[in-house]
């Protein structure tokens, strides 16, 4: 079985390494034919506006939309690409809209406000997970069909608020942070076992 990793821009190699470490073959996806053999897809971290343009020019966007049964896991930029609604994005920015959430791009602030934090995640073993947030999106609203699996307490310009950071809706999983930047494979294993293989 292959899991695809969208390899247009961003930290796709880290995702591929994560998959190999948990015994899954990774397929780097740069053109529509790469989608044929895969049973799940990861949308990596990167610059969402850039990836959006490259999805368009490579026609991968429309081909991914055509594979409606495909389980997808998006991290950071990948989460933005899955969101129904994007604030502070570009007007021409595409998104698949598979997760019924509203995200604000760079909602935690510029790079100086990027951070790491230890999180408890629903459905994973109890040890907290080290979560690395890089100019990350903030999930501002979640729909009724969406399960919030983890949240983080953060100080937004003097105001403390708890916001969702891992969400799932059916075969779509998203995290605002980058599990691929650590050695913790549990969220990737969850995607494999509970999302891809449970279908």
């Amino acid at each position, binding site marked *: 079985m292959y899991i695809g990793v969208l390899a*247009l821009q961003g930290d796709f190699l880290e995702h591929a390494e994560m998959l190999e470490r948990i015994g899954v073959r990774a397929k780097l996806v740069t053109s529509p034919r790469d989608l044929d053999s895969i049973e799940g897809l990861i949308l990596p971290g990167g*610059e969402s506006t850039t990836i959006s343009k490259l999805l368009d020019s490579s026609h991968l966007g429309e081909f991914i939309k055509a594979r409606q049964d495909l389980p997808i896991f998006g991290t950071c930029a990948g989460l933005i690409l899955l969101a129904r609604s994007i604030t502070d994005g570009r007007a021409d920015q595409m998104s698949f809209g598979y997760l019924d959430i509203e995200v604000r791009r760079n909602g935690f602030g510029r790079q100086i406000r990027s*951070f790491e934090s230890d999180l408890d995640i629903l459905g994973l073993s109890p040890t907290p997970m080290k979560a690395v947030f*890089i100019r990350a999106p903030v999930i501002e609203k979640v729909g009724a069909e969406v399960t919030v699996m983890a949240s983080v307490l953060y100080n937004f310009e003097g105001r403390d608020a708890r916001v969702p950071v891992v969400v799932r809706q059916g075969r779509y999983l998203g995290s605002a942070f980058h599990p691929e930047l650590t050695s913790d494979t549990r969220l990737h294993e969850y995607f494999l076992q509970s999302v891809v293989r449970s279908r």
Partner: protein
Amino acid sequence: MSKERPEFATTRVKRGLAEMLRGGVIMDVVNAEQAKIAEDAGAVAVMALERVPADIRRDGGVARMSDPALIVEIQEAVTIPVMAKARIGHFAEAQILEHLQVDYIDESEVLTPADYAHHIDKWAFEIPFVCGATNLGEALRRISEGAALIRSKGEAGTGDVSEAVTHLRSIAGDIRKITQADDSEVYGWAKELRAPIDLVLEIRQSGKLPVPLFCAGGLATPADASLVMQLGAEAVFVGSGIFKSNDPAKRARAIVEATTHFRDASIVAKVSKNLGPAMVGIEMDKVDLHLAERGW
């Protein structure tokens, strides 16, 4: 229970943004209008500066950090990360850039150095730094000072890619050799490179730099981007090459496509068609001012 206290400016967070820029193009811009063109074209970040290297070369004089007002204007114009340059060793310029909350500071040889003996102590900052390097020793010295991203230097503002190729091959070649070094040879490498032994040992283990390696200096065409990506660069900086060409928007888009699909000659060929003249450039043997030699 998790401790839930956010930690800012860790090494992982600083290097993390560089990881997110991989496979992308960072474009030099001198005003908000150019920044928008860059973002429209799919740049992953912009580098805000007052004059592109080709103009610094032409006009001469001391090249310094940009006017903070210009940087703010560019930050307000785009949603992608904004980087800005400080002079080598000029930590006060870097403090200003940190105050402006740029996303990355480039301690750059393109500007006139402020200190001919010391680079900035980059660990003292919360904003991550990118630094140039012509060889592995220089790269490791910058990393030991706290750089979170290395770019091979090339010769900025020339449109001649040959120096970028030389520096990239030198860095990648020495990394390959170190992975074969035995226990006593690694000390020889540390001495020869004038670099900390722990970084040399780390490279022997991992076969790569501890931070991402991007390429800069003299890139002007989609084929140039494809070339350096195939030589091991993980992303590219394009300076004068875009806004000194005839059709910057089109060329910028083409270089973005070529950087993503760098192994697919059919795509690089397609996007290279009808771009109009590239920047005229200067050949390396006609260059008087060697920017890449700045840095110690």
